[in-house]
């Protein structure tokens, strides 16, 4: 038999038919939906007079537009309220389970899928949101789709999709202290650029990846889309199985053991060939931060902003980005003042992120110059943080803890960073205006964000760890 990559195995197993000279009809196991990218798709179904094909394989939540304060009150902003209400109505009309505001499972769609055990190895998963790639951490094929495609999946549980190419990114070695999976992925994107993965599905492997927890793996797959890839995945192993065991919707008892037999077979064959391969050494990675307006414009904190590039066409983009950020080529970032710190988003708002952050600030106070928000990714994360007393630590340090949602990740709800202000953010995109018009986003790990909150500046978190 021909050697296959993990990606090939899952993909091929889900192809209903291949269109001649065209895409494959790919069967979708799980379809996550949220309020922003679905209303037009449901309208389409109504116009055609057809139902949702497999409502039981469709899971809904409200996350992008929701306020992160006073969630028990009606949403103030009229358009946001309409979108959330439209989702509620659509779910009721079409028989879809909704974890909306107030529900104990509500949260950012890519946080709740895994924590509820809905996301499992070997599955195909889609959602009208590019960071669906997060679910790939479980050894599944998960990717973001547009609204027309959401309508396809609602109508038929299938999607027409050309098979992407395959890329392998292998990271071996041990991570240094203070370096997290967020630093790994920011480092990788800074090396291969925001378009380096276009057309490809990436498998992350190597000892540095295998040693990561599930939540850390999710951070990496989450941002695989930021290098242009369709998605990223990691072969499932014991760490994966242990994470899934006992989760709400995971198979239980004997059923679990049976599934595990299948899951264990999900790995890339030794002889399998990738279209492109990269290798990195974990030892070369240090705490990272972005200085520009795309996630590829990142650097080690101890290094300055790069010098102006030589190529004419790159210069214009580079200057435009630095101009927007109010930074200069060659300038040192260490010590640069920070106005806001945002810990949240589907990249870094899980319980481990909050634990790491809390450990660093236990018994300390944040800088007066910084406004700092911590936004748990889901109700369950919020609940768990409270059980562990993390909320007390954050409050004592002067942080504001908000209720679950996408929050300041995308400037769509009420949480926005004011124009011109610097925000060290654990989210995934530093595009112009992403956190609000004129906002200056610097992407970093929760540790680095916390270090910025404590000192009011960009610092290498390792300086704080040593005297902790």
């Amino acid at each position: 038999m021909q050697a296959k990559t993990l990606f090939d195995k899952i993909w091929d197993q889900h192809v209903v038919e291949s269109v001649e000279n065209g895409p494959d009809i790919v069967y979708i196991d799980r379809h996550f939906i949220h309020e922003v990218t679905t209303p037009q798709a449901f309208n389409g179904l109504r116009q055609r007079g057809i139902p949702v094909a497999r409502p039981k394989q469709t899971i809904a939540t409200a996350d992008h537009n929701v306020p992160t304060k006073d969630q028990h009150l009606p949403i103030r902003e009229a358009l946001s309220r309409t979108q959330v209400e439209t989702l509620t109505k659509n779910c009721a009309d079409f028989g879809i389970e909704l974890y909306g505001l107030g529900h104990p499972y509500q949260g950012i769609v890519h946080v709740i899928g895994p924590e509820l055990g809905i996301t499992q190895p070997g599955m195909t998963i889609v959602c009208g949101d590019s960071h669906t790639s997060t679910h790939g951490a479980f050894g599944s094929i998960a990717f973001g789709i547009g609204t027309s495609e959401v309508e396809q999946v609602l109508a038929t549980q299938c999607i027409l999709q050309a098979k992407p190419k395959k890329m392998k990114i292998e990271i071996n070695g041990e991570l240094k202290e203070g370096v997290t999976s967020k630093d790994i992925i920011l480092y990788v994107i800074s090396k291969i650029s925001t378009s380096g993965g276009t057309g490809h599905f990436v498998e992350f492997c190597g000892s540095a990846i295998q040693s990561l927890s599930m939540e850390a793996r999710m951070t990496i797959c989450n941002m695989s889309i930021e290098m242009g890839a369709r998605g990223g995945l990691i072969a499932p192993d014991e760490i994966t199985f242990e994470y899934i065991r006992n989760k709400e919707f995971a198979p239980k008892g004997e059923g679990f053991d049976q599934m595990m037999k299948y899951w264990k077979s999900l790995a890339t064959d030794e002889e399998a060939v990738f279209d492109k391969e990269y290798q990195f050494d974990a030892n070369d990675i240090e705490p990272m931060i972005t200085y520009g307006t795309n996630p590829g414009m990142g650097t080690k904190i101890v290094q300055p902003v790069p010098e102006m590039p030589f190529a004419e066409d790159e210069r214009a983009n580079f200057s435009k980005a630095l101009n927007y950020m109010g930074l200069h080529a060659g300038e040192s970032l260490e010590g640069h003042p920070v106005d806001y710190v945002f810990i949240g988003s589907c990249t870094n708002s899980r319980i481990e992120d909050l634990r790491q952050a809390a450990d660093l600030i236990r018994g300390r106070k944040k800088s007066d110059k910084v406004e700092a928000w911590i936004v748990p990714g889901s109700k369950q994360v919020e609940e768990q943080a409270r059980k562990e007393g993390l909320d007390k630590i954050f409050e004592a340090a002067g942080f504001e803890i908000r209720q679950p949602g996408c929050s300041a990740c995308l400037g769509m709800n009420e949480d926005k960073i004011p124009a011109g202000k610097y925000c060290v953010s654990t989210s995934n995109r530093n595009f112009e205006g992403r956190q609000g018009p004129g906002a200056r986003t610097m992407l970093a790990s929760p540790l680095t964000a916390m270090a910025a909150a404590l000192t009011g500046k960009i610092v290498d978190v390792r300086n704080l760890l040593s005297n902790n």
Partner: protein
Amino acid sequence: MKKFEKLTSTGIPLPLENIDTDQIIPARFLKATNREGFGDNLFRDWRYTKGEQLNPEFVLNQNKYKGEILIAGKNFGCGSSREHAAWAIADYGFRVVVSSFFADIFKNNALNNGLLPVQVSQEFLNKLLQAVSKNPESKLTVDLETQKITLEETGEKEGFEINHYKKYCLINGYDDIDFLLSKKEAIEVFEKKKDEFLKAKTEAV
């Protein structure tokens, strides 16, 4: 879906790289529940100054540039999966976007809305950008049937790739959902097969 066969039009140059979907349509304008009207907020934060005045420096606000073809720098449409980006561009009146590279999801979204992404070489893109910037009256012809884009004043042309199936859909105004709905039986057969596959894989040996 609107059919696309052939288009001759002037073009609008936007020679920036990595134009992401947050620039094409900022998140705060994604709150509508229908597909229309997004064109009003296309490139919103570039089109308007902070004081909500039209920014005279932005190409869409310069009268000399008109047309149904947007010519943009490398890696167009990166970022989020929002189809609203494709809706906004189409709603504004564009039928074609030319670039030397497109982000994957954007490309699919565009094709699903009758907006044709035309990927050309960097050299040809530079040529088009120069020609159009120098003479805004320069016309381009995009012929989907022959898969060629031509700069009319010099006759220079370049071929572009498009998936055979997508081309067929665009030329006929045919849509993916009709096609998938016609596969209902095959999908049901597949579901049974898949159950059996999983059963075989998970049963005790």
